[in-house]
């Protein structure tokens, strides 16, 4: 009797949950028209007139929100940002989650909004998931600059690109072709499969390689998720699956160092070429022991530095993010805003045994 009762009641509870879900659903429909005008990139266009001669006020609050804290690459970039903020006598802060997830970035963006910072400089874990939070931040008066990894262009004022996608992609294919002789199987070890940058580069790499090096065959793209251990194991898997593999391109700093470490300790050392994007400090060992001949990267410190200056220029009203505007970025000189609010740092640097000791980052 009781059992019948309890299960019936439970079923009632289930129906209750379903009804609540329905309520939620219908409420969602009812809310379609509401609040739509509050979205969109209003903040950037609100102050539509730029004043190129405006002074950067001192005391600007500029906050860096990297994909995750404790990542050496972002630590260097944020360090560059800190230098820039010191030069313009602003207040620098660095906040961020300990794991690279979009939802925890949202929570930090909300906090920054609440703290009323003037500039948020961020690198997005997901191009869309942090959009609403950034919109709210801009509605609250913050200027949003993305660097390294962009969001939907509607959600930010400026994107500081490390180099043009073409420049990055083509230089890696050229480096690879040079090292493997331009013919044979090549695989790509990327970051996560929805990393905006890497996907754009890989696409260009594929078309560029097909045009310029028809004998080079890109056989696979695998994802190390920017985790050292996973990248290491993916490299191992690639060499197992493709015994004829002549080279690996890893357009991510975590990937290339893990792949280099695997190669240097295996029988493939010196036989399988490796290039991509890496930091000199992580790769020094493998350039010296002959595992890697050459690789490329922009200077992350300069990237952070430029991003901070761009944010300050926005906050000061020197620029609004429109195409063609120019601003001064301290010792890096003058930069021009390109279409879609993109500012390009420059061409990547190629590192090899001759010059690697000149760099420390």
């Amino acid at each position: 009797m009781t059992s019948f009762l309890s299960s019936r009641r439970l079923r009632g509870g289930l129906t209750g949950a379903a009804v609540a879900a329905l309520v939620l659903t219908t409420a969602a429909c009812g809310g379609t028209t509401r609040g739509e005008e509050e979205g969109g990139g209003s903040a950037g266009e609100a102050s539509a007139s730029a004043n190129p001669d405006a002074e950067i006020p001192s005391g600007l609050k500029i906050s860096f929100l990297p994909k995750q804290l404790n990542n050496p690459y972002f630590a260097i970039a944020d360090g560059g940002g800190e230098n820039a903020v010191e030069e313009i006598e602003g207040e620098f802060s660095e906040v961020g989650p300990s794991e690279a997830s979009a939802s925890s970035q949202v929570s930090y963006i909300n906090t920054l909004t609440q703290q009323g910072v003037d500039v948020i400089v961020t690198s997005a874990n997901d191009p869309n998931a942090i959009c609403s939070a950034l919109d709210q931040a801009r509605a609250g008066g913050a200027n949003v600059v993305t660097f390294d990894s962009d969001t939907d262009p509607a959600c930010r004022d400026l994107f500081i690109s490390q180099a043009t996608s073409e420049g990055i992609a083509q230089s890696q294919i050229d480096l690879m072709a040079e090292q493997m002789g331009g013919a044979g199987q090549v695989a790509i070890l990327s970051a996560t499969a929805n990393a905006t940058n890497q996907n754009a580069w890989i696409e260009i790499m594929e078309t560029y390689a097909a045009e310029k090096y028809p004998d080079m065959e890109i056989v696979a793209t695998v994802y190390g998720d920017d985790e050292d251990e996973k990248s290491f194991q993916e490299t191992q898997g690639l060499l197992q699956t493709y015994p004829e593999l002549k080279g690996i391109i890893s357009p991510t700093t975590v990937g290339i160092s893990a792949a280099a470490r695997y190669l240097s300790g295996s029988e493939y050392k010196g036989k399988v070429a490796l290039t991509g994007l890496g930091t000199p400090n992580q790769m020094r060992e493998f350039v010296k022991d002959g595992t890697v001949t050459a690789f490329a990267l922009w200077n992350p410190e300069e990237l952070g530095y430029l991003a901070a200056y761009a944010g300050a220029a926005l906050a000061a009203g020197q620029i609004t993010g429109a195409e063609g505007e120019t601003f001064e970025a301290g010792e890096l000189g003058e930069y021009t805003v390109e279409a879609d609010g993109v500012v390009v740092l420059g061409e990547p640097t190629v590192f090899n045994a001759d010059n690697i000791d000149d760099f420390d980052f």
Partner: protein
Amino acid sequence: MALDSAHPATPAPATPAGQAPAERPSPTSRLRLLGTGDGVITLVLVVFLLVASFAVEGFASTRNTGFLLLDVVVIVLIALPLTLVIVTGEIDLSVASTVGLTSAVMGQLWFAGLPLEAIIPICLLLGGVLGAVNGLLVTRLGLPSLAVTIGTLALYRGLAFVVLGDRAVADFPRSWTTWALSGIGATGIPVVVVPLLVLIVLTGVVLHATPIGRSLYAMGNSEDAARFAGIDVGRTKLWLFVVTGVVAALGGVYWTLRYGSARADNAQGLELQVIAAILLGGVSIFGGSGGLVGVLAGALLLGSLRNALQLVNVPSDVLNIVTGALLIVAVVTPQIAARFRGRRPRGRPRTP
């Protein structure tokens, strides 16, 4: 979990006042059950909110209230059915993976061109099926829920990646995604709090004012006694798991809309936060004691603590240490207190 309920001697001293006897409690004892057991944690919450409002700049504002509530909505939502599950002496660690799998399926179906009005019921149904798998393995095969749901934690998360890979589906209609974030007028309180409140009240009534609620406590205290009292333990638990699955799926749908992005890794690790909130709220991991008010207070305390510490620029590492320490303190304190009162439990099994 199923195992320690085999020890009828469990006095469950973790929250002395929140313990419901297997027999029908008198109205007064039921009132006490709502009151004192959750009293401490609620008091801590109130004190914390007061202190934070004065000490933390920007904490007590409508906008921040909105941010804070949005961050705890899914945690509270999933904590509701999971509290019932834990009260019966079982556990479900797979809830966050259910959120992830629902989100992935939602993204894939949306990508395939289905309307959201059709996708959402499908997702809820999926959640029910996922919950039923847990429930059947636990009740029909008699497997320990801890091991079963560790298995489905990995399985469901893995399936989420199989469904959507590392892609993200993000082109959900803006009207839906902004609704998920919108507030009630100028109060800053998110509109989703309203349906959530309905569910909270519903769960509270079921747990604290119906024979079902009493039978859940009875099961948690002594499964055998509950069975002798004529309660169909297996069937009740099965339905609890199903409801948990459905509610977790609802959480997945909301999560996807709130962040406007369907991803397989959505809500990874959320189960820890939900369970932390429940245990902090005074629910015994052995089952048989605890109340919903405490759970709500626990979830809000964890959420507002994080929020306040973030506002004063405490690094995320410290937040993790604080969360971990708080969880341990929450379970150790009542034990120590019970020992001081001389009511030291004897022969109680220590379980994982």
